[in-house]
């Protein structure tokens, strides 16, 4: 009887260990799987050629990712520019100024924002942002635009990355020890001066990590951007031009990709590129965040 229990314990332990090791290797498995599939296109052209060519003609066997990479960078850039000031001010307000009750009310609302599916953001973008750009913003600058543009994608993405940036930066601001603030206040600094010179300086690496996390979220976001960014395979030259970001390209061509040679391989290479960029950003910001966390403890 006792042996049976011990045996059960041993077996469970081994089983769980194997499962743990396997699941921590999923990242590598994904990278490897995508690499296997993209090898056939890498055999015909070099990676740099694919990344920097602007010619996208799958039927002729030309797969230049440059317009899509630039599309992604434009859309992500606009999103980050909009999100940074709003999120940081909100995070400072929530962690330094707001009453506890306000904090308790806003947190679930921001969590709710994080839970809204990206298609719903897309629908909202099509209904609200796109017409607004078409009817008001573009004419204001004397331009004609369908509304489906870098700006529309950027605005929708900015809202989608609000929750993560706010969540992580509030945590970072709250982890700054209270004594540091008291020291500054005791010297006669106002609350804002304390925040500006002490809290932000202390929290800076963590805040940057939070922004990078948001940025990498925006980088890989697919559906909402696909619905509002316009999807024209050309390098955009202003925020009112349409863009065709990399994730949208991958999602939009699932239908035809098996009928054109190398097409599927090219799209899976695009996913691999996306994965690598996002992994790079994520690993850096996670390392920064764990170091900050450890320092506080």
């Amino acid at each position, binding site marked *: 009887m006792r042996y049976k229990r011990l045996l059960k314990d041993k077996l469970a332990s081994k089983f*769980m260990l194997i499962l743990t090791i396997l699941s921590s290797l999923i990242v590598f498995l994904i990278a490897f799987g995508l690499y296997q599939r993209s090898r056939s296109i890498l055999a015909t052209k070099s990676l740099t050629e694919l990344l920097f060519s602007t010619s996208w003609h799958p039927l002729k066997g030309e797969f230049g990712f440059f317009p899509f990479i630039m599309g992604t960078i434009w859309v992500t850039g606009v999103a980050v520019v909009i999100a940074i000031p709003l999120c940081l001010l909100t995070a400072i307000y929530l962690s330094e100024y707001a009453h506890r009750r306000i904090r308790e009310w806003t947190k679930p609302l921001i969590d709710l924002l994080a839970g809204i599916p990206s298609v719903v953001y897309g629908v909202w973008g099509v209904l609200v942002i796109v017409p607004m750009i078409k009817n008001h913003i573009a004419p204001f600058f004397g331009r004609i635009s369908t509304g489906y543009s870098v700006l529309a994608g950027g605005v929708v993405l900015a809202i989608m990355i609000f929750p993560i940036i706010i969540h992580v930066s509030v945590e970072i601001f709250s982890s700054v020890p209270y004594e540091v603030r008291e020291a500054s206040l005791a010297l006669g600094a106002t609350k804002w001066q304390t925040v500006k010179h002490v809290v932000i300086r202390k929290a800076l690496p963590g805040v940057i990590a939070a922004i990078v996390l948001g940025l990498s979220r925006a980088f890989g976001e697919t559906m909402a951007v696909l619905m509002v960014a316009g999807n024209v395979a050309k390098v955009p030259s202003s925020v009112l031009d349409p863009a065709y970001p990399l994730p949208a390209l991958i999602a939009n061509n699932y239908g035809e990709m098996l009928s054109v040679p190398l097409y599927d391989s090219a799209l899976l290479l695009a996913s691999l590129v996306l994965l690598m960029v996002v992994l790079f950003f994520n690993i850096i910001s996670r390392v920064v965040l764990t170091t900050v966390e450890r320092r506080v403890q």
Partner: protein
Amino acid sequence: MDRRKIEENIFKSLMIASTLIILSSLMIILITVIVNGLPAMNLAMITQTPKGGYYLGKEGGILNAIVGSLYLAGGATFLAILISLPVVLYLNVYAKKGSRLVIFTRFSFDVLWGVPSIVYGAFGFSIMLFLGVRASLLGGIIAVSLLILPIMSRAMDEVIRMIPEELLDASYALGATRFETALKVVTRQAMPGILTAVLIAFGRGIGDAASVIFTAGFSDYIPYSLLRPVATLPLAIFFQLGTPFPEVQNRAYASAFILTVIILIISIVSRILARRFTKHIVK
């Protein structure tokens, strides 16, 4: 002296303004979905599958997508529980605290959490090519379970980590093995938190489109087998919005309304469970 006060006030009002902007963007999104979706709602939307010519504005509903999404997210959640619960229990009960494996696993879940869903879709697709499976419920379940695995594991890990060490010690002192402690003490103590984690993951699974676009396909019928293609709500919204007909676009808004309501219900239920959990925690 005065300038400092003015600066303080300017920044304070800027902060309040940006908080209000962010909260009102949530309100505007919800209001837009309700205002556009509610008038287009009717009983047929949620009780019928698409009839012939549905995408041209003829009769029918999106029952296929609602049921499909529930099947898909349900299956994926089940699969993700089977993997993440043992892993999280291993990290917190069996493994030595602060060991390399623990740190590495937590880190890799953190990183996985940031991987875009389209990449999971593409990876799922390449597995399916490898196994020779066509776009199907099974393919979708695999891709979505990979997507929600890190979300679920991290959320479970956070609750199980909070269980006091003494509780485990008490169980060991009574002669229980670690396995029995993990199953009968840890899991039970963390149950509401685990359910919350499961619900959060389920919500993400229902709402995600990019991972199923390659893997689950689309179908006007409710699938009767794992190997049949399946419709999902997000893709149904996407396709209906893409048609040039206003009546069908209105149905897209109604479908977005249905999806949002499902997500809101899940979120509220998980919030209630989370509150119950904090009430019972031993401090």
